[in-house]
């Protein structure tokens, strides 16, 4: 009963956000350019995070995020109400990231953001890992950050996209299916396979 109430309120929030997005889009389409600033402020951090985890490089991620906003701004007149704004924006950004990764397949280097240790939840798993590696929490988190990045970048772009959108960005299967233009079943299957691959890559660190 409590779970049902929580999911209802989350859905209400999503609907309210989508309505607000559409209102902003309509204002931009009517010529109020300042309304686009609200959309940028609403999505820039989440979109940047998705791009950063896709390419593993903060400079490229910032560039791709800006690129996605610019493209969205340029073609906002063609935006129709049959999709939500964020789905449309994410699709633009992921297309850009995919072509960027294809172009720079040979040249990939990581430049990582800072790890906010205070924001990291105190979990039983982390406690066990600290004890096993005989190190302090900060060092473990930094090492874990590098290992996770390496493991994520061993995944194919499709599997990486599913994992990032679901586990890091917190999108539902249905939302990911809409963004990537696939079915929910395909998203579930990709997630399952991707997590198996990550488990293999991180085996040495976790056991």
């Amino acid at each position, binding site marked *: 009963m409590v779970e049902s109430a929580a999911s209802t309120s989350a859905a209400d929030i999503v609907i309210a956000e989508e309505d607000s997005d559409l209102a902003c889009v309509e204002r931009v389409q009517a010529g109020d350019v300042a309304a686009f600033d609200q959309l940028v402020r609403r999505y820039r951090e989440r979109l*940047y995070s998705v791009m950063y985890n896709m390419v593993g490089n903060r400079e490229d991620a910032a560039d791709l995020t800006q690129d996605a*906003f610019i493209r969205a701004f340029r073609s906002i007149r063609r935006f129709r109400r049959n999709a939500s704004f964020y789905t449309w924006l994410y699709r633009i950004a992921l297309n850009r990231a995919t072509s960027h990764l294809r172009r720079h397949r040979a040249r990939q280097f990581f430049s990582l953001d800072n790890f906010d240790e205070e924001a990291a939840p105190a979990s039983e798993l982390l406690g066990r890992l600290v004890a096993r590696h005989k190190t302090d929490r900060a060092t473990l988190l930094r090492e874990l950050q590098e290992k*996770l990045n390496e493991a994520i970048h061993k995944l194919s772009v499709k599997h990486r996209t599913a994992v990032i959108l679901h586990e890091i960005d917190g999108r539902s299967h249905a939302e990911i299916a809409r963004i990537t233009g696939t079915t929910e079943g395909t998203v579930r299957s990709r997630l399952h396979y991707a997590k198996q691959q990550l488990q293999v890559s991180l085996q040495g660190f976790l056991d």
Partner: protein
Amino acid sequence: MKSPNDSPDQDRISELLKLKRCERPDPGFWQRFDHDLQRRLIQQAVIRPTVGERLWLVYRGLVHAAPVTACAMIITGLFIGPAFQTVRQDGPTPAHVAVEGLSETDPAAVSGLEAGDQIALAAPEPVAVTSEPAPGAELGFDSDSREIPARLEMRAVYRGNFTFVSETLDNLASSVPASAVINY
């Protein structure tokens, strides 16, 4: 976000992946980001005209350029063209042997020349245009006189290099059999 198919191992992976939500860019990052984005948006708005605008610019450029081009062509025709012609007429240097009053119907004048002779005309004669085809207009050779009636036309074309014409005529006259008639 937990899927019913997830094993405990996959739950551990999900838990670790959620740690990536704690990665943050440096404090000044969003200020730089907004500034760069604004600059790029303005650049796009200013520099990139639409396809229709580009076509209009090309059309407008052509319309403005047409009178200028026409004027330039007229000026070229009036002033530079005659000057060029004068230079071309004055071009051939006086020859060692000047054949005064070379006539189109005087076969001896041509047949007497040796290959390599340098000939210059004192005054190039205009080519007569008549309704009747000029003798030898079909580049034929008269078997008796070995006259080469094509010389006038050739001379008109090669005013600037008569040496070449005389050599060609001479070679033709000596190499073609008397009975041969060549039609082109």
